[in-house]
């Protein structure tokens, strides 16, 4: 059997195990909030992986899509009385639409893209939270969704979004579409000479990545039910997702998973009460990773790397 197929089977097993785990854990462990957040960050990290891992664009403003998803879903529910599930799906779509508006940013190279994307997410935040738009977005007052609050259903929705994000990454990892993306990442001119429609492939990855973040935002809004603009546009959300992906290893299925479970777990032990310790540790981690392990923890498994999903 080809290595790639073995990798596929390992990947599918991994996804099923993780999904089953998070479906069953609430029965024996009652901190649903923590479980929910781990799933949320796994999904966000995998979503960011779609664009960063496979095309090399680092979306510093990834949280912008998350916030758009949260707000679009909430406002659809509150103002237009759309059902929760369609509203969340439309939240994902809204994030992708913002992604389309931002596609010109993909023309920029590395650091410029990252900062321009950051600026875009900040701009969206300041627009949504502006008091002049209070009639639509409720401005600084934030959102209250307690009328549709449902802890169990929203937990399960997160489970589905996580599963979806896993499947997308697995598809990117295994398919030739993913291969063309990686070719673009390595050298976009050669890729176009090889016949890859660079702009289209990159845009698809970008929009799927935005879509995942939008779904995460919508489900988060549902689960948390009360939030402010600064809650869902917090730059920390981008930063966490980026660090989790870098730590575990980009362009793999398992990397962001490892990164999230280890680092978010660590954050919950030391980060919530004394965030500066956690900030110091992850600052040091980033520096060490870039200097000594730029491809993340996954690159330690050199011997079996062809089998790492």
């Amino acid at each position, binding site marked *: 059997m080809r290595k790639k197929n073995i990798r596929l089977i390992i990947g599918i097993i991994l996804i099923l195990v993780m999904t089953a785990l998070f479906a069953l854990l609430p029965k024996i462990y009652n901190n649903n909030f923590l479980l929910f957040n781990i799933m949320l960050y796994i999904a966000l990290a995998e979503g960011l992986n779609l664009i960063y891992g496979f095309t090399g664009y680092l979306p510093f403003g990834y949280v912008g899509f998350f916030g758009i998803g949260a707000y679009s879903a909430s406002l659809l529910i509150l103002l237009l009385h759309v059902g929760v599930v369609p509203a969340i799906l439309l939240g994902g779509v809204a994030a992708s639409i913002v992604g389309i508006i931002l596609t010109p940013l993909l023309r920029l190279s590395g650091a410029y893209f990252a900062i321009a994307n950051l600026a875009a997410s900040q701009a969206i935040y300041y627009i949504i939270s502006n008091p002049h738009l209070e009639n639509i977005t409720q401005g600084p007052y934030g959102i209250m969704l307690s009328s549709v609050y449902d802890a169990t259903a929203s937990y399960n929705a997160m489970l589905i979004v996580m599963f979806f994000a896993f499947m997308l990454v697995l598809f990117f990892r295994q398919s030739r*579409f993913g291969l063309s993306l990686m070719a673009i990442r*390595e050298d976009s*001119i*050669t890729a176009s000479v090889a016949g890859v*429609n660079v702009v289209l*492939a990159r845009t698809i990855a970008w929009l799927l990545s935005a879509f995942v973040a939008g779904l995460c935002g919508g489900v988060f809004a549902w689960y948390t039910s009360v939030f402010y603009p600064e809650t869902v546009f917090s730059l920390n959300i981008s930063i966490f997702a980026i660090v989790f992906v870098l730590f575990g290893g980009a362009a793999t299925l398992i990397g962001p998973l490892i990164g999230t479970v280890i680092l978010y777990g660590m954050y919950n032990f030391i980060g919530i009460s004394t965030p500066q310790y956690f900030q110091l540790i992850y600052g040091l981690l980033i520096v060490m990773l870039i200097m000594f392990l730029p491809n993340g923890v996954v690159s330690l498994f050199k011997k079996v790397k062809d089998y790492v999903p």
Partner: protein
Amino acid sequence: MSPKEILKVENVEKRFGGLKALNKVNLSVYENEILGLVGPNGSGKTTLINVISGIYKPDAGKIYFFGKRIDGIATYKLAHLGINRTFQIPKPFHGLTVRENVEVAALYSGKQCLKSFFKHLKNFKFMEKGYCNIEDDVQTAISIVGLDKLQDKQATQLNTSEQKLLGLARALATKPKLLLVDEIAAGLNQEETDKIAEILQTLVKKSISIIVVEHLMHFIHKITSRVVVMDSGSPIFEGTLEQAANDKRVVEVFLGG
């Protein structure tokens, strides 16, 4: 019966700022021929290759491929149409293996695969075999250039000559009808050069026409039937290499007269 013209370059111009890199270039390539493109550094050879392969858009003029206008068309579409190239300095996909490098090209665009991406996503069948089945094309391309044994290696681990062969394999995997080869022999030893010359000659037999840009005259001499000499952005001579050697202007250009 005269041979069929597959590429026709008509009055093509390209400027970089004030500099005219190409000035009213006219050129034809016929079926089953290897055309040599020679000239001193800065005479516009590589620029012409970049224009034909769609990396630069020409500022003026027309290019026809099998009678169809192709100037200004995006590079990846030209690859689908059957024009491909290699680079003077090899640009492989470093992080991918040799096979994967060729596989990307063999997708014959990614175009078909993007279509099947959605189709297979819809049917949840995207992992099945048959979706973009291109394994044979990949293997053929790799074995033509003789990289079979290295196909699981990462592209970064190859030496320069192997990277050049990989570039050739990648171009072949798109099944080109016209291949643009930019200074492939530069920096290689005699043995490697001969091997590449041999490969190129077998390609012509598979009805692929080739434009070769090269400084090494013995290489050009060995494989081409016809050369075009360029100087300051324009062709100044067209004919066999022997004729060129006797042409006054060509001699002037090369000896810096």
